[in-house]
């Protein structure tokens, strides 16, 4: 059926679907999917450098990106997240989409100067995001 095949190729729909790169794009994860991003700063930018002596630089990291529809297997999200996504897409778009937020943190060691001039080494909990999730 060369004639049929060639006539079909002229059909814009068929041509597009045969454009494999286009075809596979629908299976790729969205480029800006929910994931961890770095943000290196110094405590002088937070205006804390008059009492925090160390570390000199700090990367709290943060979560940013869209939450895909199939969140369960990638982000360990509860079923509620998928339900909320369906509500947003099908029922009521005033309900927000699931948000991309930190799921785990790690501590930070800090060297601080107390008001009386004494020096304290402390390890603070939950200062660096280490994993993101959709909720």
């Amino acid at each position, binding site marked *: 059926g060369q004639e049929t095949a060639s006539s079909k190729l002229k059909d814009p729909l068929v041509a597009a679907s045969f454009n494999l790169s286009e075809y596979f794009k629908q299976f790729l994860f969205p480029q800006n999917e929910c994931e961890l991003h770095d943000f290196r700063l110094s405590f002088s930018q937070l205006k804390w450098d008059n009492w925090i002596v*160390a*570390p000199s630089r700090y990367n709290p990291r943060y979560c940013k990106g869209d939450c895909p529809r199939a969140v369960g297997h990638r982000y360990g999200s509860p079923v509620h997240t998928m339900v909320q996504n369906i509500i947003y897409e099908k029922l009521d778009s005033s309900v927000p989409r699931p948000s991309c937020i930190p799921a785990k943190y790690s*501590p930070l060691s800090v*060297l601080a*100067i107390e008001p*009386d001039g004494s020096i*304290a*080494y402390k*390890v603070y909990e939950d200062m660096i995001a280490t994993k993101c999730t959709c909720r």
Partner: protein
Amino acid sequence: SQASNGEAQIAAGAELEPEAEPWSLLQSQDGRDRSGLLPSPFNVPSDEQGGTRRLQPDSRALRYMKRLYKAYATKEGIPKSDRHHLYNTIRLLTPCAQHRQTLGNQMTGILPSLDLLFNLDSVPALEHLLKSVFLYTFNNSVSFPSAVKCMCNMMIMEPKSSSKTVPRAPYSFTFNSKFEFRKKHKWIEIDVTTLLQPLVASKKQSIHMSVNFTCEKDQLQHPSAKDGPFNMPLLVPPSLLLYLNDTSAQVYHRWYSLHYKRRPSQSPDQKTGLATHPMGEEAAECGRASRHRR
């Protein structure tokens, strides 16, 4: 009267008996609840808002703490995992008041005795003392050709008591310790945990003590040590290093996170299940596995 008699015996300078609990006689003078003093770690401290300046730390103390920081954390501030310890806070206090009681004699190795006052206001109620160390350094980096043996005598003085309470006799604690001086000796650490534990635990506002050193060349190491002048350099007044476990929520509790991380499926009630399981953990594990299979 019972308490003061007990203290008088202790004050006679008797060696501290390990099991003695001399400080149980003390009541906390101030009875002030200090939990309100808890520094919320990252709110801008109130004194900055009030415009009052923060006191600058002692430069030697800051150098020591920066070196300690490098030993405990990476450049990005990540705690080093090879440091397994229970304390999550280390405080270095420099004496807020000090003066010399006696001049001492450097040639014979008797150093001037010091009267020191440490302010404990920066130690909040939720920080529990695990270890305390006296930190000595020299006013110039010295190198000793030989070993030096020192005797350190510490006397805890009662804080200025109000007229109501009976003034208590000071309590002395003789600390025999030998220091090995090497080239460029920087710091000497003297563990004073047993001495200060009761004071910090009873939430004292300050520690008032007198300290004197007597040093001599260690004859055992160098028989010829008897002769020749012995020029002992002056010690800079000591700092006090407190290793504490801060039990407030914002601070990292290594033992807690390791424990609960190790068994992610472990919820507290399941844990009790394990505890009651006759065969212990392994059987419970395989029991759970078979349940999963079913």
